[in-house]
């Protein structure tokens, strides 16, 4: 398939991993930011191609993983109301809140629907003028423009029954939290290609300079990621710390200007809680005052809902690459993919879930050899 196969070629992958092997002289810890990248790494088994000097820390860039427990509880409170059609991207439906997930709300009779685009939710609002339609607007800078567009469209159409439950998060503040931690282990970043497609990469330049850490804007196919790693390792070995763009077929320095303009019109930055990490200043978007008629949190009066994360979960240290998932006492015991206590066990892209599956393979393999 065009535009896909050329980025998944096994021969080129071996060449790239050899190149990394050739230049690496000592241990380096790299972090890929985006859950989509983690997904590719896990799905293609890329870690098995890397030299032992390279350690990968899976970053906090999975929207499913970082959406805080209390926001899921807010979503559940809204979705349980009889006068509401609650719409969401598919994979948010299974994320457990403190007592249940959105799929359980559906099973109990709630009108919960999966949509592929927030604009589909706007369409549903047009078709059901007597019902309140809410869209669960989560995600990073990547999904923000489409979510902003849904609000913008709803206003243009004069819809009074459409709103969004907004929990947008932003990448650079999370990177800064990781880099500024005294115990930080991450020495180089693969920045999220699609986030930068929207935002450009100028905002990463001060981060790279301040923390003397190379940042490579990287795509999502296996060869993209291997090349991004090669570029980051090369910088580290040469003592450079620049922002480089591996994903030039999609990312421009200034990003998507039209999308950024829309974002600035609809959203403003705000403090956000991150699941497993806590509150990070200016790390998210909320609707501007001029769009507050579309803010589900106000309309349905759920702002007061507060939920504590599980005290057993060490997600924060895992997401910063300080601890490996299996070093957590709850790992695989109280915390499994069916009953996740924290962010990285929730999505298949999360670090703990990835370790859970891999650990199983290696544990059984060793067991077998021992017998």
């Amino acid at each position: 398939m065009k535009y896909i196969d050329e980025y998944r070629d096994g021969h080129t992958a071996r060449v790239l991993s050899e190149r990394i092997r050739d230049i690496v002289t000592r241990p380096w810890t790299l972090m890929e930011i985006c859950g989509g990248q983690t997904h590719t790494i896990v799905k293609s088994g890329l870690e098995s191609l890397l030299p032992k000097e390279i350690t990968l820390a899976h970053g906090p860039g999975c929207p499913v993983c970082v959406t805080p427990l209390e926001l899921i509880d807010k979503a559940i409170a809204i979705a349980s109301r009889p006068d509401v059609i609650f719409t969401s991207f598919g994979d948010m439906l299974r994320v457990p809140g403190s007592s249940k997930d959105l799929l359980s709300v559906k099973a109990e009779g709630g009108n919960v629907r999966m949509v592929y685009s927030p604009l589909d939710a706007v369409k549903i609002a047009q078709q059901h003028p007597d019902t309140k339609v809410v869209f669960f607007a989560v995600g990073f800078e990547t999904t923000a423009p489409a979510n902003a567009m849904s609000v913008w469209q709803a206003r243009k159409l004069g819809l009074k029954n459409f709103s969004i439950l907004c929990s947008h998060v932003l990448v650079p503040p999370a990177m800064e939290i990781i880099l500024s931690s005294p115990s930080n282990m991450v020495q180089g970043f693969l920045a999220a290609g699609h986030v930068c497609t929207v935002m450009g990469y100028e905002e990463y330049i001060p981060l790279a300079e301040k923390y003397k850490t190379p940042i490579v804007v990287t795509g999502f196919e296996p060869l993209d990621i291997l090349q991004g790693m090669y570029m980051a390792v090369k910088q580290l070995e040469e003592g450079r710390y620049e922002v480089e763009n591996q994903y030039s077929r999609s990312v421009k320095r200034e990003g998507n200007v039209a999308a950024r303009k829309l974002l600035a019109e609809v959203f403003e930055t705000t403090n956000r809680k991150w699941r497993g990490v806590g509150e990070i200043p200016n790390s998210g978007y909320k609707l501007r005052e001029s769009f507050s008629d579309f803010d589900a949190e106000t309309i349905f009066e759920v702002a007061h809902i507060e939920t504590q994360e599980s005290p057993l979960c060490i997600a924060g240290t895992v997401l910063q690459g300080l601890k490996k998932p299996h070093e957590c006492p709850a790992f695989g015991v109280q915390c499994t993919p069916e009953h996740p206590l924290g962010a990285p066990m929730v999505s298949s892209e999360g670090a703990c879930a990835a370790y859970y599956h891999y650990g199983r393979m290696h544990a059984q393999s060793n067991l077998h050899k021992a017998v």
Partner: protein
Amino acid sequence: MNNEPMKNRSAEFSCPIPITDYKNILLAHGGGGKLTHQLIQKMLLPQFRSKLLEPLHDGAIFSINGSRLAFSTDSYVVNPIFFPGGDIGELAVNGTVNDLAMCGAQPLYLSVGFIIEEGLPMEDLWRVVLSMEKAATVAGVELVTGDTKVVDRGKGDKIFINTSGIGIINEGIEINPRNASVGDKILINGAIAQHGIAIMSVREGLEFETQIESDTAPLHGLVQAMFDVSKKIHVLRDPTRGGVASALNEIAENSRVGIVLDEGKISLTEEVRGACEILGLDPLYVANEGKLLAFVVPDEAEKILSAMKNHPLGKDSAIIGEVVNDYPGTVVMKSKIGGSRVVDMLSGEQLPRIC
């Protein structure tokens, strides 16, 4: 606040409900993944346990007066009832025919139960009936007994169909999901994920340049062609809901063996691959209705493969993996790029990813 009385009441039951994780049935309990598995293992198997049920095969296999028979049942609730490449009637016949074929049986007789929602257009029912008649003729089976029920509008979804079937197993055929053995080659008769994507594209209103059609087909002819060249087939399974990944996980667990798949050997049509890329779905977990997985002894694999390729339903057959000694109960895939990963059973429904 008010949950205490409930707790006390539940203590009165002599048999507590064995699944306490969920108070209600979720769609995922019918999705063919982990929750379905749990439902069967915790609620159904302990209560209905018997020697014949225990293997949890596509059907029960037993002998009566020296004849070995297979008996199987399945219900069909597909929405929409008409979809590209087939309809619920054809699916209901082929599905049970295939369950019998996966027991190594020659399907003979089917029963059919209709549950029809009040208001279903008579014309739609007629289309379904004609389609079942045609499918039965093609498969060479007879519909010999049946039942019809009508439920209030809103209490069903147009039409649900249950079919059960009986087939006869020939001498020398020994199929059992526990028989997968180290060294066995794993064969499949073509490109995967057609049915699930065909259904999803209609249901979600997705449009592609070419229409993706369901692969629904009766597989017993293909199975017969395989047995004609070799009886050394250990396991047969049609990877329906839950897809190839779930079917292989069940077999790996039942046989206590490891399975290694070769991603490069598993074929997908361009359209299905494109749809899966766009939706963020893994085709390994998407349903098939005209595919079979066969575990065969390595020496006979090539012979069986060429017999499959000579059959109209097996032109694109391939050897996609093998059974190994390592990591019993686990399915591992060697990726095209040269890495490897675990292909796990799904925890719930496969849902499109955000990004």
